[in-house]
């Protein structure tokens, strides 16, 4: 009996030993051979790597008002393979997110994909409503969405950041580098129920830098409003305005009409409204260009403001007949009167008899035409100078025909005249947060003496006997120049199509502002002094009051 018991005990012991041996062998197997793969599997179940998207910097105006910033949005995506009732789910999601169920259904029903977007950057409240429905296969992830809270204000200047928050146009494109941050990374440790129990930061996120512009949203919005009324009044194709600080080159406003809501850029792009005409488009400037001819002749000591010329109503230059805007008999005019009355014959006579082709070309280049101003905006045009000078070119160029310029080139040249002859590079960006404002780039284009003479002559334009009486602002002295240019087409100038321009500086005694207004294809009147000058006066009067610039003349 005892022997039987002993043998049973030994058997039991053997079984136990074998069992423990097997367990030990299994443990050794798991702890050594399978250790690496199991450890990886365990980490995958509890730890996950999360990329932290960097926020895009905010674009502020000069007053610190945000013009472009990031808002939180929720991207809704789905795994169609997990969706059992695509028709019902599509109907629910479409109703909550404001989508079309008929378009969403085939996307959710297509089981060939494991990932589809339901809506990128949906409003968070709508996404939360959808999340509460607990639809299987629907997932939600937060994303940043670029918004332009002031809608149409400065839209073509600000441009657009696309669905992936990358700058695609305008300042968003130009400043994409500083605005874009560096994404971070962290490891999230979760318990078996999925709750986060630890976050191990690996790479800190660096948001993009904020950018401060020279634009002032109030001046900008007012300029846009005035242009809107001007385009409507004269049934024009479009209009552009620039407000510059002549001392710093800072652009206070760069307005275009028709405009668009910056939040609806893709629609505006489809309609071709997105272009910044002030920087990218060129046009023949017309009489505003006469200032180059006269400044050149004054600077080279060939004439003085009092030099007299005997001028018929029209003159022939090679195969072209040049005449003044209004019929008149032969008159004697001083250089100052030529500018005041915007005499085509007078300007061409000065260029032909005094400056010559080489002298004129030298001064055109000296003023910076034919090359970019270098403004901090993408797609700037350099303008066009005549590639070949025929016999009649000297009859065109001095009066602003046969050359093409941008509005920003013209505005910066008049700003130089307003700034004692010192040209300052125009710019839209004041500074990037954390960086010094870049030093002003300047170039002297006129001597102080010639500049003073020119400014005095340009004051004569804005008077009862000049071409721009409509540009007068009570209490302020104004200097400026009108321009009325025919639009060129493939077969010469297009009949009935004009560009009306006025550029003025105010107060003329110590200019604080230079304002350019260009109206393209006005229908009911064509002259710069009639169409563009009143818009200048409205914009400048508002800005002077807003900037608290005291009057420099007694009220009449």
């Amino acid at each position, binding site marked *: 009996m005892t022997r039987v018991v002993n043998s049973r005990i030994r058997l039991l012991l053997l079984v136990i030993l074998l069992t423990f041996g097997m367990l030990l062998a299994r443990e050794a197997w798991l702890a050594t051979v399978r250790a690496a793969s199991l450890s990886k599997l365990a980490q995958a179940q509890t730890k996950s790597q999360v990329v932290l998207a960097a926020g895009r910097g*905010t674009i502020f105006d000069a007053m610190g*008002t*945000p*013009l472009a*910033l*990031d*808002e*939180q949005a929720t991207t809704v995506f789905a795994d169609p393979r997990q969706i059992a009732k695509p028709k019902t789910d599509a109907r629910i999601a479409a109703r909550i997110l404001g989508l079309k169920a008929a378009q969403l259904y085939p996307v959710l029903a297509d089981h060939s994909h494991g990932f589809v977007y339901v809506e990128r950057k949906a409003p*968070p409240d709508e996404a939360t409503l959808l999340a509460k429905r607990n639809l299987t296969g629907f997932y939600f992830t*937060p994303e940043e969405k670029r*918004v332009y*809270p*002031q*809608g149409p*204000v400065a839209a073509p200047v600000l441009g657009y950041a696309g669905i992936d928050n990358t700058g695609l146009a305008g300042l968003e494109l130009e400043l994409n580098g500083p605005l874009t941050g560096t994404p971070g990374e962290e490891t999230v440790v979760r318990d078996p129920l999925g*709750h*986060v*129990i*630890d*976050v191990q930061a690996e790479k800190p996120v660096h948001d993009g830098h904020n950018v401060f512009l020279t634009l002032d*949203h*109030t001046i900008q*919005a*007012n300029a846009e*409003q005035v242009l809107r009324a001007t385009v409507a009044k004269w049934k024009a194709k479009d209009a552009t305005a620039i407000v510059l600080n002549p001392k710093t080159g800072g652009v206070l406003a760069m307005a275009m009409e028709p405009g668009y809501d910056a939040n609806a850029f893709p629609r505006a792009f489809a309609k071709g409204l997105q272009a910044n005409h002030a920087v990218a488009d060129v046009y023949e400037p017309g009489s505003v260009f006469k200032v180059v001819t006269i400044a050149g002749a004054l600077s080279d000591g060939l004439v003085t403001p009092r030099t007299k010329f005997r001028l018929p109503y029209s003159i022939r230059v090679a195969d072209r007949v040049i005449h003044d805007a209004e019929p008149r008999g032969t008159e004697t005019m001083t250089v100052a009167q030529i500018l005041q009355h915007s005499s085509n014959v007078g300007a061409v006579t000065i260029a032909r008899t005094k400056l010559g082709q080489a002298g004129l070309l030298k001064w055109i280049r000296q003023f910076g035409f034919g090359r970019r101003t270098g403004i901090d905006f993408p797609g700037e045009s350099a303008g066009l100078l005549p590639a070949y000078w025929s016999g009649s070119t000297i009859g065109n160029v001095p009066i602003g025909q046969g050359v093409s310029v941008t509005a920003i080139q013209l505005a910066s040249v008049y700003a130089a005249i307003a700034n004692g002859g010192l040209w300052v590079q125009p710019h839209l960006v004041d500074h990037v947060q954390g960086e010094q404002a870049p030093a002003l780039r300047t170039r002297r284009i006129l001597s102080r003496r010639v500049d003073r003479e020119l400014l005095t002559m340009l004051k004569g334009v804005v008077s009862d006997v000049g071409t721009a009486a409509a540009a007068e*602002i*009570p*209490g302020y002295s104004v200097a400026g120049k009108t321009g009325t240019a025919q639009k060129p087409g493939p077969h010469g100038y297009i009949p009935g199509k004009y560009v009306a321009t006025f550029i003025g500086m105010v107060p003329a005694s110590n200019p604080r502002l230079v304002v350019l207004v260009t109206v393209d294809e006005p229908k009911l009147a064509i002259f710069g002094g009639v169409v563009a000058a009143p818009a200048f006066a409205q914009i400048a*009067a*508002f800005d*002077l*009051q807003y900037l*608290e610039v*005291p*009057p420099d003349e007694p*009220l009449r």
Partner: protein
Amino acid sequence: MLAVLLAGVVALNVAVLRVNVDVTNLDKQELQLQAQNAALASSVSSAAASLKIEATARRLGLVPAPATDTSYIDLGSPAAKP
């Protein structure tokens, strides 16, 4: 003694886990507040748009003051000095 030490270690780990959960919740809260802040900044900017202010002012019966109606005092002129 060993049991007390063991219990202490467990309690410490639990406390660390709790703090981690709190930190995670605070991070979430921070993100929510940042989102709210951005939304509010956007609303403020939108409300500060001069066109909106002007439209509201006009609705209330206000009209823009003509630029020439603004008076300035030159504190630098001798007449302004006491």
